[in-house]
């Protein structure tokens, strides 16, 4: 056990030495890995912030409730107040039928009511949903429809559906990018290891002749791949955080234009740990495949 531990420590030392011996080449490899990882990580972060922003902007999905003709205006206003107390409703606005007619005129649509002796519009309540998910808005609409005071309603959830679809698409894109760039990371590591093995082929041959197992030969390369992946992950994290810092004030201006006070969030510790672990695992896998392939060729 002690020997196994010592050899692992020695292999780790060799991997660090390899990084130290070629600092510029190591730095470039780590940067390339970092940039490759920062793309899916950055997109993931952008989506997470967009998700958060969508919950904070004032343009919430709205449901327009048209009250039954002949319903007393006071009852309509009471209903608006009652609805505003619900958890799934952010706010309500009562629109009296007189106000509705006035708006129609202001919008240049007075021709529509010309010739009518009475105001044909009903009183209405405009309800802003607390949640932006289309499913939640539709559930709310079904509940409101069953209220005895309601004659008709119109759900305006299109924009929420579009945003949700956009975010879903973004998540798929993150997965695809992560898979592709993860493959790139493994390929970069594999290629570096392949070159290292080529340079160390005499040492490998000698080691084999004096009794080294493939496991013994493989270990320093696996440590190197894992270490390079880990450092690439750290570089990716730093690039994403730096990019976020650089864009923060511009994004805040954009958010305030939407009436939202958005605080941008970087990668959480858990997200960062997942990024580092994924990078290390991909580095290990790239090294494992390359070292096995190269050792077979050196047989």
């Amino acid at each position: 056990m002690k020997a196994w531990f010592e050899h692992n420590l020695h292999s780790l030392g060799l991997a660090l030495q390899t990084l130290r011996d070629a600092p510029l080449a190591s730095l470039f490899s780590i940067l390339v890995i970092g940039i490759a990882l920062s793309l899916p990580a950055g997109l993931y972060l952008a989506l997470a912030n967009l998700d958060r922003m969508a919950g904070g902007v004032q343009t919430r999905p709205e449901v327009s409730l048209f009250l039954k003709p002949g319903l007393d205006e006071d009852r309509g206003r009471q209903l608006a107040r009652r609805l505003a107390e619900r958890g799934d409703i952010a706010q309500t606005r009562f629109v009296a039928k007189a106000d509705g007619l006035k708006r129609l005129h202001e919008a240049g649509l007075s021709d529509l009511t010309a010739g009518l002796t009475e105001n044909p519009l009903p009183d209405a309540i405009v309800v802003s949903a607390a949640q932006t998910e289309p499913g939640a808005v539709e559930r709310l609409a079904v509940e409101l429809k069953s209220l005895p005071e309601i004659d008709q309603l119109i759900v305006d959830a299109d924009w929420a559906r579009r945003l949700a679809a956009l975010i879903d698409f973004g998540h798929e894109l993150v997965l695809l990018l992560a898979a592709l760039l993860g493959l790139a990371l493994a390929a970069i590591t594999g290629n570096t290891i392949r070159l290292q093995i080529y340079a160390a082929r005499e040492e490998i041959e000698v080691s084999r002749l004096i009794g080294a197992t493939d496991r013994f030969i493989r270990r320093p390369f696996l440590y190197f791949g894992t270490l390079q992946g880990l450092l690439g992950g750290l570089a990716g994290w730093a690039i994403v955080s730096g990019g976020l810092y650089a864009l923060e004030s511009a994004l805040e201006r954009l958010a305030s234009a939407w009436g939202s006070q958005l605080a941008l969030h970087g990668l959480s510790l858990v997200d960062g740990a997942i990024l580092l672990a994924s990078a290390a695992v991909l580095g290990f896998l790239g090294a494992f495949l390359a070292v096995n392939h190269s050792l077979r060729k050196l047989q």
Partner: protein
Amino acid sequence: MIELSSVTKRYPGGHEALADISLTIERGELAFLTGHSGAGKSTLLKLIAAIERPTGGVVMVSGQNLSRIRRAALPYFRRNIGLIFQDHKLLYDRSVFDNVLLPLHIQGMGGNDAAKRVRAALDKVGLLKRERARPITLSGGEQQRLCIARAIVSRPQLLLADEPTANLDEDYARDIMDMFQAFNQVGTTVVISTHDQALVGRYGGRTIHLSDGRLVP
């Protein structure tokens, strides 16, 4: 210790390096493989070290049939053999000390015990004072002695040396051969390939002569 029965070795392309070789080398024996260049001496050593596999026949070393040995078992088999190469096969980017440490390291030995054994091996071959040097700074004879130190540090039962004195002047060659004789005298089986007949005569071991891949009686 070593038993070859009707061993043949044919390389891709049809060249027959060894043909119908049968011989036995007993434990503790000092044996010289002699013959002209291309006679099959190196091939025979490679078969005994399981670096090559025979095309036909059986090679038994320490009770193991090398024709059938599993790939995974090869490293463990080789740890019981000390190999000395004509071209030394040293690691030139490591110190003299680290070169000798490598076999012990491979066998999972480290720390003070390993360092003591490395220094004892270097002392035996007269290189203790050069332990921090890089092999490239050593003379040809010193590099060969370093190769011997690496071969003996794990105290193998069998030493195989392929033309260990080639390219060395007479004094260096005698030094090296004296060392092999000393190892043999403490019970190590030593097989040396050489084309230097005069050297063989001086040490009185058994001579196995090869010509065109065949044993010469």
